[in-house]
């Protein structure tokens, strides 16, 4: 297989683009896709410092690498979930990445904020670990950005993540979730920072290939709680579709963003308040994170 640009030996075939690239031209392709995402959604400027949420996985470290190489001012945020050796290893990967590139890495422990690590949260709430994990991450990313003075948080969500989330929302017609699915979510309250996903144009295969070719040491092992997760089941279904019909995931997500999403946008905006317990933004009186922390406190003290 030959590189579409130079005719050299290809390292990766991108069937949805009907193309293959050698390593240098693939890296160029990848960086152009990130630049296009940032430009199209006006995600951030070069004057801002971007807080990159990193997990130690391929996506978030690839994103941080692209932004650093492109000259953006960045800092990292690692949320320690307290998931046994998995968290220890992923934290070590993030710390090594940041140190090698002279970048600041903020570290926050979920257990310090909510009262227990993710494995205990699962037992306390009797819900899938991903539920309390996602809630804690959203809350802590926003809080950390505000505390440290960053106006924007970038996450490593890729095309596969976004297509799987969209699939899940459509399957259950979660019309309140559909307008929030966007590569860029604006700040709608002084205490709510912008959230952006500069990798939304790139597939999981592409982010993994980029991380490998860039020599990024990322954690390959899955989170032990990911097994059986609904998002994984949706990805597997979409991957089978993609195998038979390359470009399916791209068309599903991009078609939604361009044609369908505006139809689901709320006519009336949601009224946001500050949580009476912690001061973070919520639609009610007490935010979901404080309710979770209270539940942990009650269940673990008995």
């Amino acid at each position, binding site marked *: *297989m030959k590189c579409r640009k130079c005719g050299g030996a*290809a*390292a*990766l*075939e991108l*069937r949805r683009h009907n193309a*293959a690239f050698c*390593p240098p031209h693939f890296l160029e392709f990848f960086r152009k896709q990130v630049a296009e995402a940032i430009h199209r959604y006006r995600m951030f400027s070069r004057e801002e410092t971007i807080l990159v*949420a*990193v*997990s130690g*996985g*391929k*996506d*978030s470290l690839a994103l941080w690498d692209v932004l650093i190489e492109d000259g953006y001012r960045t800092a990292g945020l690692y*949320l320690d979930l307290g998931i046994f050796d998995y968290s220890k290893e992923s934290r070590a990967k993030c710390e090594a990445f940041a140190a090698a590139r002279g970048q600041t890495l903020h570290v926050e422990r979920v257990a310090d904020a909510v009262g227990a690590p993710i494995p205990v949260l699962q037992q306390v709430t009797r819900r899938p*670990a*991903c539920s309390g*994990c*996602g*809630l804690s*991450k*959203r809350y802590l*990313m926003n809080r950390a950005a505000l505390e440290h003075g960053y106006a924007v948080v970038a*996450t*490593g*969500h*890729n095309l*596969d*993540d976004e297509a*799987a989330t969209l699939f899940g929302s459509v399957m259950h017609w979660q019309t309140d979730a559909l307008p929030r699915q966007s590569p860029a979510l604006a700040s709608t309250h002084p205490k709510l920072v912008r959230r952006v996903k500069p990798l939304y144009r790139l*597939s*999981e*295969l592409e*982010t*993994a*290939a980029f991380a*490998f*070719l860039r020599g990024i040491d990322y954690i*390959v*092992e*899955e*989170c032990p*709680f*990911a*097994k059986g*997760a609904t*998002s*994984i089941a949706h*990805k*597997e279904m979409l*991957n*089978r579709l*993609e*195998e038979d019909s390359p470009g399916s995931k791209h068309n599903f997500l991009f078609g939604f963003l361009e044609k369908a999403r505006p139809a689901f946008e709320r006519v009336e905006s949601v009224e946001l308040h500050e949580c009476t317990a912690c001061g973070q933004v919520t639609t009610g009186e007490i935010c979901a994170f404080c309710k979770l922390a209270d539940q942990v406190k009650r269940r673990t003290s008995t």
Partner: protein
Amino acid sequence: MKVILRNPRREIDVDGRRRVKELLAELDILPGTVLVIRGNELLTADTVVGGDDVLEVRPVMSGGRGETP
């Protein structure tokens, strides 16, 4: 050749030469869901492998991690 699989990590020996896409089909793996690595190079589906090759078949799927993939 030796083939290293991940999640969980294990190794298998495969006799003969074949294209990467044929190897993946035998292992019941969709080509778009893994990187196929030989040393420090990525292999495309049409690459012929075998003999003394040591391949890593590395899954690319992640999930269930909420906000920081």
